[in-house]
């Protein structure tokens, strides 16, 4: 990205070479793990649908999967079906025994092949560890532009180009990036940044199969092992509806229990700022922010967190933010919806008590059949 402080003076109209004008359609790379489509791909299909409609073109999902012995293609076709229900008109399906667990080399080769063959004008990927690894390699190979971690995507009605908006300077500013005379226009978006679209059950589309001429012997990098994160211990932070998060202001590790107590009563996930993760009060999977998770809960309660920009960018998508901080000047009060100035170690237990009472009272009022 160019120095954001020197934006182009006037809007540059992008004039495409004739060769590039042939590039048509919007693509979303469909990421999947253990039989499930990654939510970020569904969020991107929602966004891609809007772009495709604005351009008057088709939306395609790109599915890559391991070719199963005995030709069981149900899994791969299931991913395509999910993509159709979330808005895709067609899916490009590549199956090969080298496309099992993700590796940069075969995936880069497969995706660049597919792009060169069918020539989309826009290619979107999730900003996951897989998506970022793949997007950077594919963009370089295709010699085209890639904008990372976009928060907004739109079409310029004047010249059909993609306007990718992303935070810069750690979130203090936003910038809009355009791709000049290069195609496809590539962008990545982090999970939970875009809204999840409503699926349309039963919606279908066409599947275009494309082969990959590559053998295991051609690939240098080998996967020796995969150590799955223990799902039970793994917080589902990005998808939690309520999060209680604690920061350095809690003073000592024992006090972090107060955050857990409130979370337990609320059935909430536990979040944390980076310093307390680094101090080992809680595991890194709980970190919210620029180098942690992006979250979008309905309620985010932040205790003893100052609201530094790197934390803010990960949680400001919350519908409602409640901040507890002893410093009335703490930056978090600039963007929270509710603020309490006070000692978190005193306020947290009071909130736990108050929410517990409230939920108990509601339970007593709820008719039995509704809870069934």
């Amino acid at each position: 990205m160019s120095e954001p402080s020197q934006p182009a003076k006037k809007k540059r109209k992008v004039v495409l070479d004739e060769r590039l004008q042939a590039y048509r359609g919007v693509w979303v790379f469909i990421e999947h793990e253990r039989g499930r489509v990654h939510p970020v791909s569904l969020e991107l299909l929602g966004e891609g649908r809007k772009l495709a409609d604005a351009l008057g073109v088709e939306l395609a999902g790109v599915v890559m999967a391991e070719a199963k012995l005995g030709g069981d293609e149900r899994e791969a076709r299931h991913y395509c079906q999910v993509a159709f229900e979330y808005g895709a008109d067609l899916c490009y399906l590549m199956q090969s025994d080298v496309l099992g667990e993700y590796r940069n080399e075969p995936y880069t080769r497969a995706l660049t092949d597919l792009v060169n063959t069918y020539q989309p004008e826009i290619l979107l990927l999730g900003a996951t560890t897989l998506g970022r690894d793949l997007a950077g390699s594919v963009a370089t190979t295709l010699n085209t532009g890639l904008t990372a971690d976009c928060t907004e995507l739109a079409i310029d009605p004047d010249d059909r180009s993609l306007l990718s908006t992303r935070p810069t300077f750690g979130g203090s500013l936003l910038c809009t990036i355009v791709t000049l005379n290069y195609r496809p226009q590539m962008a990545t978006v982090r999970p939970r940044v875009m809204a999840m679209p409503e699926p349309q059950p039963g919606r279908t589309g066409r599947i275009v199969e494309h082969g990959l001429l590559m053998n295991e012997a051609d690939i240098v990098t080998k996967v020796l092992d995969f150590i799955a994160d223990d799902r039970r211990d793994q917080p589902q932070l990005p998808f939690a509806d309520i999060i209680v998060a604690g920061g350095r202001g809690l003073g000592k590790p024992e006090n972090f229990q107060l955050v857990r107590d409130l979370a337990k009563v609320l059935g909430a996930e536990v979040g944390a700022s980076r310093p307390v993760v680094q101090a080992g009060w809680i595991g890194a999977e709980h970190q919210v922010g620029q180098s942690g998770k992006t979250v979008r809960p309905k309620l985010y309660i932040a205790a003893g967190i100052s609201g530094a920009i790197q934390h803010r960018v990960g949680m400001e998508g919350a519908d409602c933010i409640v901040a507890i901080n002893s410093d009335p000047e703490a930056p978090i009060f600039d963007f929270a919806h509710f603020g309490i100035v006070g000692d978190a170690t005193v306020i947290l237990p009071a909130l736990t008590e108050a929410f517990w009472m409230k939920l108990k009272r509601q339970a007593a009022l709820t008719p039995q059949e509704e809870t069934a």
Partner: protein
Amino acid sequence: MHSVVCIKQVPDSAQIRVHPVTNTIMRQGVPAIVNPYDLFALEEALRLRDRFGGRVTVISMGPPQAEVALRKTLSLGADDAILVTDKAFAGADTLATSYALAAAIRQIGKELPVDLVFTGKQTIDGDTAQVGPGIARRMHLQLLTYVSRIVEIDLDRREIVVERRAEGGVQVLRTRMPALVTMLEDSNRMRFGSLPDMLRAARQAVTHWDKTAAGIEDVTRIGLKGSPTIVSKVFTPTPRSQRAEMIAIEDGSAADLAAALLARLAERFPGVEKELAKRS
């Protein structure tokens, strides 16, 4: 063992403030630092040198002032520092940056073959995490991103085994060197510079390479010209319409404050109320 570490000088984003009236960035006094993610890459390279011997060369592309950042890495123990600097590089996006860095690293390799190239996970100003994969692609190096641990290196067989953070777990990968590694943050702890290194860093020359010295063959692929993307607009995020509604009660207890918050929550955020109802 020869490692090349790519570092970038960046403004300390934690200290950037937006002017409340004019909505412009206040850059004055914002210190320039070594991109914090790159220090994990540097430390990992230094550890390999501790184990296997060899050299650590640090490289950066940027304006002449970026020499300060390179000197910092010398004081932390790097052996050599090269600044790739030329007006022709100005305005480079990630594609043009990786083109220039790949050319320069090839030049370094002519003096002493390179076993591993390290980059940070991402920069705090560009934040794209693309430059590493870009360099790997251009130099035909095996790419290992989000590496949390180098498990083993076999110099005779020229093999490296690493643990890589993937979605839902950790991949253990084996590949051939030369390879490019992007280090995950917090995967190691940066050492303090030793006194001899600090003294050396103060005197040692940082090599400056212009586009010719860096071995750039195609000048249409660097700087603004070589960049497929441009920034068309920079603006401040629409600020929340107002500051937080403060819940305060004179002489109130914590319990009073909690009760007041719950009441206001219910009034202003029916969505939260519904969510709570699900949990009762």
